[in-house]
């Protein structure tokens, strides 16, 4: 993850704390997903950014996941997400998210 974005996340955590913070991802690139999820939980795997060695342990979910989708206005979801979801392998994304959270 871009070091500048790592810095913004670190500042956001310092400002709001971790109790109510959730990271919602939108990537369909599986390697990218893993990298981002690891960065906001275990720390920057490349050890170059501000989150190197910083275990934030933030909860990580994906906008494609049913649990989230059910809470979103369906019209907005279809307008903003629907066409992307059809164009990518959303099942692989969901499976990757479960694996990253140790749910399978």
């Amino acid at each position, binding site marked *: 993850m871009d070091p500048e974005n790592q810095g913004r996340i670190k500042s956001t955590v310092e400002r709001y704390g971790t109790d109510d913070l959730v990271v*919602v991802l939108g990537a369909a690139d599986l390697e990218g997903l893993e990298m981002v999820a690891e960065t906001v939980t275990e720390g920057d795997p490349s050890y170059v950014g501000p989150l190197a060695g910083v275990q934030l342990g933030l909860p990580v979910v994906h906008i494609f996941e049913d649990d989230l989708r059910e809470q979103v206005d369906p019209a907005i979801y279809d307008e903003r997400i629907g066409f992307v979801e059809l164009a990518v392998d959303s099942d692989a994304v969901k499976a990757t998210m479960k694996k990253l959270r140790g749910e399978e």
Partner: protein
Amino acid sequence: MDLKGKKVIALGERDSVSGEAIADCVRTAGADVVMIETECFV
């Protein structure tokens, strides 16, 4: 996970769902979006 009242960091991807699109969606679920970013992995 119940999004209502949560503070959300929306991290999108340029070639998939953008951070802005994530933010628009989670706001309808009652979440407070505190950071929006769209990454590029390539």
